[in-house]
């Protein structure tokens, strides 16, 4: 039974991708896409209740159990959103039916790649899965075939491939470090083996490996100097893809980075990964916060907000310690739920107002109240204001850091405050004031958006114990 669940999580997306590639009518494929995503989510839920012995290729432990469920859930809600989104895009002829068939297939391939990354035990397999995820998203970002979309896709491809190449080199170095201790062949690539013997690896090799891995997977996480692809990919790609990119792909890349951080944490001779991650996290948080002020495109603004939040998360994991790690894990889940919900709202806004330029969108709470207040709730959540979940994680990170390293906490708080300023400066023009642009009511599904906000609000007030226990022992694991 347990193997069935594991297989299901991988096979359903692959098979559905193949089936979707053949069908023509986009309404059917959209519904099939939703069905497949729902089934995968069911399988992922199964994983929660079943004990899976880690095989050479696949592994299910506390760390990825939560992320598998999160990824498949957000994948499902995004598919629900993309059904109505794609339907509308075809009505206004921004997408041709053929490319949509191609789109749904790629969507399922992306789901397969992300699930594979999460449950891969073999670091090589994990790298391949991320490579597939990058390639599929590159194709989907370029789906609109406009100049900006192509430029964004090309930039994403070049930077992504260079990042992936560096990550591969890092993986090879890890293998080289493991080979004298564990012996040749498959075992030297299996993560569970690596964790047991990490203390005996050659520290110098591990350091170089971690540098390459940090840069390789760091590019996929969107940390500051390596972030260039993220804003354009979000702005020019279709909104469901921005939601998946921001909500899931960044988390998956960071998950891979965390796997390797565990290795390094276990080897005392190697350099401590903490300070490296803290500096990169801080730089990207403050940098992205300042970039929010000059944005004129709504999706690009929220892309920078994702960079800022990834900076905070990497900062939290860099700080280490049970409290900060717990906060980092919580922040990852909350951020992916909130950011994808915001992108659902932004998608509908772009469709209703026919443009993504902030200057042309105004008085949303007057013309489409539900959408407007949904966006306000989203921005309130992403800015880290209470009742919602992100405040709890920011509270834990800032207060636990202040006791140990006051200046870092002050810098982080400064970054959060600047980001809040930028977000609300733009929200004032978008959601309030005199309505601008067309005022047709948006016929769209708000269910996924408000479902996400409900979960974030619930976790902000009362965290279910199963989530707490899961995060706590992972936090100890992360060191």
């Amino acid at each position, binding site marked *: 039974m347990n193997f069935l669940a594991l297989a299901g999580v991988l096979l359903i997306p692959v098979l559905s991708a193949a089936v979707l590639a053949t069908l023509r009518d986009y309404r059917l494929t959209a519904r099939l896409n939703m069905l497949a995503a729902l089934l995968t989510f069911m399988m992922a839920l199964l994983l929660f209740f079943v004990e899976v012995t880690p095989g050479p290729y696949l592994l299910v432990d506390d760390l990825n159990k939560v992320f598998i469920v999160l990824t498949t859930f957000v994948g499902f809600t995004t598919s629900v959103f993309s059904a109505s989104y794609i339907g509308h895009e075809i009505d206004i002829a921004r997408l041709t039916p053929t490319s949509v068939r191609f789109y749904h297939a790629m969507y399922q391939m992306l789901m397969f790649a992300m699930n594979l990354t999460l449950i891969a035990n073999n670091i090589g397999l994990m790298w391949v899965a991320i490579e597939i995820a990058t390639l599929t998203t590159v194709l989907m970002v370029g789906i609109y075939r406009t100049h900006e979309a192509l430029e964004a896709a090309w930039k994403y491809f070049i930077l992504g491939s260079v990042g992936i190449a560096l990550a591969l080199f890092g993986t090879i170095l890890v293998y080289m470090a493991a080979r004298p201790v564990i012996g040749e062949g498959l075992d030297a690539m299996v993560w569970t083996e690596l964790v047991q013997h990490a203390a005996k690896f050659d520290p110098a090799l591990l350091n170089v490996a971690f540098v390459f891995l940090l840069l390789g997977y760091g590019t996929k996480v969107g940390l500051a100097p390596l972030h260039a692809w993220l804003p354009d990919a979000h702005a020019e790609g279709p909104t469901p893809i921005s939601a998946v990119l921001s909500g899931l792909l960044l988390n998956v890349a960071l998950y891979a980075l965390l796997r390797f951080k565990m290795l390094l944490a276990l080897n005392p001779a190697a350099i401590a990964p903490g300070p490296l991650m803290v500096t990169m996290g801080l730089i990207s948080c403050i940098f992205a916060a300042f*970039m929010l002020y000059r944005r004129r495109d709504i999706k690009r603004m929220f892309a920078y907000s994702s960079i800022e939040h990834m900076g905070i998360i990497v900062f939290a994991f860099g700080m280490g310690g049970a409290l900060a790690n717990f906060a980092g894990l919580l922040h990852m889940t909350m951020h992916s739920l909130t950011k994808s919900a915001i992108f659902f709202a932004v998608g509908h806004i772009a469709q209703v107002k026919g443009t993504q330029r902030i200057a042309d969108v105004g008085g949303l709470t007057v013309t489409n109240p539900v959408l407007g207040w949904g966006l306000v709730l989203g921005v309130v959540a992403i800015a880290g204001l209470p*009742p919602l979940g992100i405040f709890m994680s920011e509270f834990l990170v800032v207060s636990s850091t202040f006791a140990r390293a006051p200046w870092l906490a002050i810098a982080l708080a400064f970054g959060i405050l600047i980001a809040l300023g930028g977000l609300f400066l733009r929200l004032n023009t978008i959601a309030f004031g005199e309505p601008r642009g067309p005022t047709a009511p948006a016929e769209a599904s708000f269910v996924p958006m408000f479902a996400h906000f409900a979960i974030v609000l619930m976790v902000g007030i009362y965290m279910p114990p199963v989530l707490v226990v899961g995060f706590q022992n992972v936090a100890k694991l992360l060191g």
Partner: protein
Amino acid sequence: MVLFVLACVLALLIVAALAVALGGRPRSGNFVYGASLIITLALCASALFSLISASTPSPVVLPLGLPWLGAHFRIDALAAFFLIVVNLGGAAASLFALGYGHHEESPLRVLPFYPAYLAGMNLVVVADDAFSFLVSWEFMSLTSWALVIAHHREHENLRAGYVYLLMASFGTLALLLAFGLLAGADGNYAFEAIRASRPTASIAALVLILVLLGAGSKAGVVPLHAWLPLAHPAAPSHVSALMSGVMTKVAVYGFVRIALDLIGPPVWWWSMLVLVIGGITAVMGVLYALMQHDLKRLLAYHTVENIGIIYIGLGLALAFKAYAMDFAAALALTAALLHVFNHSIFKSLLFFGAGAVLGATGERDMEHLGGLIHRMPQTAFVFLVGCVAISALPPLNGFVSEWLTFQAILLSPQLPAWGLKFLIPAVGALLALSAALAAACFVKAFGVSFLGRPRTPAAANAQETDIESRIAMFFLAALCLLAGILPGLFIDALAPVSTALIAASMPHQVGIEWLTIVPIAESRSSYNGLLVFFFVAASGWIAAFAIHRLASHQLRRAPAWDCGYPDARPETQYTASSFAQPIRRVYGMSLFRAREIGAMPPPGAMGPARLTVELRDLIWDYGYAPVASFVGFASERLNVLQFLTIRRYLTLVFALLVFLLLVLAIWP
């Protein structure tokens, strides 16, 4: 008791949710305000009961909030007192809103957030661990931000909301850092644990400075006050009454809870910091108020002055506590808390009056009002009572708390610290100056807007407000008079609070005959509000009776004498800026760079001469504008990074890789 309060808070949140559901229908306003009125009254009664019965505080832990900590709630004497203040203001505002609410043109933007705002404030006072304290603190700011931008069509309301939210978040982050310090690295955030672990002197000092930033910015202490006069007038009047009268008090609660309760024994130089800030806030606040001609902005700026007075009281309490002069500390703390209570009453009353005027005339600018006493006699009377109370004039409550603060100042020569010996007289002078300026400010506010002749048609045919508003205002006016006449009752009610915080309280007042209040000793000083009021009333009655019997009764109406050339045009009257002109010449030249530019028409031309007054807000120009321009400058410079070519991005990646490899190469 705590569970009852939490149940009421939950009820308020449910009312808020219902308000969203049935927001559209016309009667929804009455439902929401009626429900919150009932709930706040219940809360106020239970808090009063728990304060008087001084029952032992029984903490309650709910499984919400931080998973391993849970949410702690506790009502001790301090919390009970502030619960009374919050819910009294809330009840009055809800009663006022029952009538005033009909003016609201977009009820759906006000109704859902109003009960949530009340719930947030109650939660802050009841919270007993850092996380739930900060969650309710920021939830309070969030709901009030939503209320401030209820009229989002005017751009300056949006700007006010934006500045407000930024300052609120700055305050919350400061408090967050303070709690981070108090809780330590392993994060025991419960107030019990914080009290148990005594922080070292340096940490305590840093926490105090952070709390001054955090709670101070929410209360509106001078350098951090800039958002208050923007945000408070922007909200609907009953909400601005709540914000000015009640939210600033919750901010004072936050400061008292941390500075006097959690940090532990104070160091003497802390009080110098608080006193200096209090003194400057008091004088600057009232000077700003004097320069305004928008009624609600004037009241908002004046809140800053009263917060200054409260902080002076708290500073004195800290100073006395540092030298273990417990009786003096109890006197100073009771003075400050009594002023908290008094201010929440008369500031709400004044904002209701301003709201009634706004509702009747649609005008907030005093230059467009005038002569309202004829059209709105009852509102005028009640507003007059509020003005007399806030100017700290004898029969009413404003004078009592100011008198107690003066008595506390007179006790301070025994403090050995040299710094305090020079600082306290100066702060005493500042307090006296701000009291006198307050009287000037409210002569202007009442005189220009209610007396004289109506300056615009809107003021000419204003109608008296509805009955609920008047009931609320008369209730608060009566409370002002009661607190002024029988201060002994209120001082004894505050005794458990000061015993909780300073382990000493003022001598028992009710026992003293003739209901006089004696702060320290009979010989030292005493004041009897009732007797003074009775004495003045009696002598006034005697004079009236004597004149009624002896003097003539004839009375003739005629055009105003005006030294022989009567000019009935309203323009000849004194306006708000002309009334403040002498004071502006005295104080305004240096503080606001006030300049009067007279534009005379060219000789022979028949155009009118124009006199414009130019005021500059130095704190905004040198405090807030540079920060905004820095952020703009930084974001402009960094924006270049968005428009590089792919090759340059690759260079970035390449440079980072080479740098990290170099670090590895040089690593020891």
